């Protein structure tokens, strides 16, 4: 068996391959649904209906997609520069911590100032937090996959200490949670009686901005060049170190914005289950989107549909909502395989 690079890939397959891949992932998962004793068609119909079938379902789905867009962008930007930031989860909590610190009464401003202030402060903290592993990478050649991943646990333990210790809310009847953020810090709801909040619009705006930056600006050009070839960018005299630092600030900042958005948009107070792994899911989101900033929006919504829909489906029939995890995982594998096969063909013998 050998691989041969394809000469060119038509636009049809470039778009069609990922769609086909997701379809085949669903076909594979249908096997599990049959095994579980239900009709796959009914199950998928319930899933789609549960995620998109009503205004309420739709708003739930978009609410779930919001942090995924932020963390997906964080991974997409960093991976484009070949900065393997696996620490989105940690940066998310750093953002949430800073928003808690500033937002629970330390600073009081009208909402139109308070919200941007918290997002900027959180983003700055998240970006600076990613600078440490980045510095270790550029100066000591420490593998950032390891350092960013391990820092996630450091941050989680720190949050653990904060919510059980100094930040514990005495009004929370003993639950390990910090005090709620002040009203001015809460993100306004977009659709009445739903949980969809301003964070979704901010996430969309960030996706657009990141796309614009990558495509039209000097910094974006440098990020793409450094990621595509560090050697050639260095040779061409590009500011490689500055580019990597900028990428880290941007990526960490975007991940931290997911934390601010969840804190001020959904929960209102810091707990240890603020994020069910949005930082890690962001990597999947970015990979499904082939690191394209606008694609990140679509793949984040896709994953949100699967999770929200699976919850609703599992309430209606006997299939466990773990099918969402399986579907996402299988989709990632099939999409990666499809992207690979659009670039190479396999020859047997």
């Amino acid at each position, binding site marked *: 068996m050998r691989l041969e690079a394809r000469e060119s890939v038509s636009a049809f397959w470039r778009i069609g391959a990922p769609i086909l891949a997701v379809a085949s992932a669903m076909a594979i998962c249908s096997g599990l649904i049959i095994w579980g004793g239900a009709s796959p068609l009914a199950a998928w119909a319930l899933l789609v209906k549960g995620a998109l079938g009503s205004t309420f379902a739709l708003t739930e789905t978009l609410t779930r997609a919001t942090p995924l867009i932020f963390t997906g962008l964080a991974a997409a930007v960093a991976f484009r520069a070949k900065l393997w930031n696996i620490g989105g989860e940690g940066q998310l909590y750093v953002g949430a911590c800073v928003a808690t610190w500033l937002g629970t009464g330390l600073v009081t401003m009208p909402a139109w100032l308070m919200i941007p202030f918290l997002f900027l402060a959180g983003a700055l903290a998240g970006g600076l937090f990613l600078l440490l592993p980045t510095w270790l990478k550029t100066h000591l050649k420490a593998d950032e996959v390891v350092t960013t991943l391990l820092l996630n646990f450091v941050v989680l333990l720190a949050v653990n200490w904060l919510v059980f210790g100094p930040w514990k809310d005495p009004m929370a009847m003993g639950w390990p949670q910090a005090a709620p953020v002040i009203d001015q810090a809460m993100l306004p709801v977009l659709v009445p009686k739903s949980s969809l909040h301003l964070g979704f619009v901010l996430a969309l705006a960030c996706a657009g901005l990141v796309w614009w930056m990558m495509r*039209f600006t*000097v910094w974006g050009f440098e990020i793409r060049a450094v990621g*595509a*070839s560090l050697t050639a*960018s260095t*040779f061409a005299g590009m500011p490689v170190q500055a580019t990597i630092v900028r990428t880290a600030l941007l990526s960490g900042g975007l991940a931290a914005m997911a934390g601010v958005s969840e804190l001020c948009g959904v929960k209102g107070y810091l707990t240890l289950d603020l994020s069910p792994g949005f930082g890690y899911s962001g990597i999947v989101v970015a990979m499904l989107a082939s690191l394209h900033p606008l694609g990140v929006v679509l793949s984040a919504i896709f994953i949100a549909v699967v999770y929200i829909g699976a919850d609703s489906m599992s309430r209606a029939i006997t299939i466990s909502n773990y099918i969402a995890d399986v579907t996402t995982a299988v989709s990632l594998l099939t999409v990666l395989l499809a992207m690979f096969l659009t670039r190479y063909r396999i020859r047997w013998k």
Partner: protein
Amino acid sequence: MSTTPLLRLTGITKHFGPLKANDDISLTLEKGEMLALLGENGAGKTTLMSILFGHYVADSGTVEVLGRPLPHGSPRAALEAGVGMVHQHFTLAGNMTVLENIMLGTEPLWGFRRNSARALAKLGALMDRFQLRVDPFAMVRSLSVGERQRVEILKVLYRDARILILDEPTAVLTPQESAHLFATLRELVGQGVSVIFITHKLREVMAASDRCVVLRHGRVVMEERTDRTSAEDLARAMVGASIPQATRTPHAPGDEVLFLDRISLSAPDRGPALTELSMSVRAHEILGIAGVSGNGQALLADLLSGLATPQGGSVILRGQAMDRPTPAGMIRAGVGRVPDDRTGTGLVADMSVMENLSTEVYRMPGFSKRGMLNFRALASRAAQLMDVFDIRCAGPGAPVRKLSGGNMQKLIMARVLSQGPHLILANQPTWGLDVGATAAVHQHLLDAARRGAGVVLISEDLDELFQLSDRIQVMYQGRLSQAQDTATVDRAQLGLMMSGQNMRGAA
């Protein structure tokens, strides 16, 4: 001839997409014959040999050894039939001994003991029989390039090869080592081994081969006994027409544009350290740096590219000392850099032609403003350069990865020359290029010198150095010989200096 030839290729055709790499090629090889396979880059030589050796599967056609067809796409079957290949880039493990390298792959995978004694006896017999001497217990990394090649040949003979294929065997050798190699090959042929060597150097073909086959655009365009042909005929067959060669018209040298003053520089994995190296280049002058690669050329190129800061000495560009050279600083100071590694260092292969033409200028006024790229300016500059430098590609948006080597080099030349450099570093600028692209690169360098640039031309190709340089210096183990005027220097003497002898006045 009525007897079955040792090797017969019949009607080999191989497509890569729309490209016909091999088009109905047939050739034969007799026992004890030395066949030269000639052709430009991209003529299909390597593809043909890869099919013979089973790395590629031909679309049609057969390979027969002594009348028995070889199965397609099986290197193992080729090895068992006695076909052995010495690649241009050696495939030896540096941290193992010669004997261990030769035994690699011949032992059963799950054996617990290695039968070194028997292997040593067999190797010793081979060395006696073919007059190929290497210390079996020496570590490969301590061997010279010529010795490593001998190990590669022994490795193939150890597997009882009757047909030896060598891909560009002299590319990394000094003239003396090349002569030694061909003496060895004659010895092999004398004892009944058949040899195919791939080359584009006509001198070697005329001196060594019994018969030659010329490929062009994937077809056999000429097949002749070597004593019935001439270098001129072969050149014409290779190119298809005679290409005018760029010729040098000497100019009075101008002011000094580069002075290296007792540079000391070492870096891990970049070859021998530069020690007290001094060098001077003047405007209108092309200074040729001869030498076998791996003698410090990489560090010299790094230094002039701004990638390395010397530990001692100073770099003076047009009277200005560069204290901490950086790539951007060198570009600003008017140094145009043509690296030896086009796809890895010179170009971002996954980016477009336009983007690659922009990588050194996008921050300059006019091409970006307040952090925004000025696409219109960059695109019109790219279009103009593609036109002037004859860069052939699908368009400014085409990824550089898809360009031919010649067009890649034209792109780099365009990027360099469009900035009007005072000094040009050209490191192996025509390596792997076909005759047409080579002539274009040569002409660009000569034109730049005529306009007043100083050129440092690092090359392993003596012909190229003689054709272009005003003066030549030989680099050996991080040192430079005294500069010699090209008009008076003796080729044989340069060869000796390249192997470290007679480094008269080494500075």
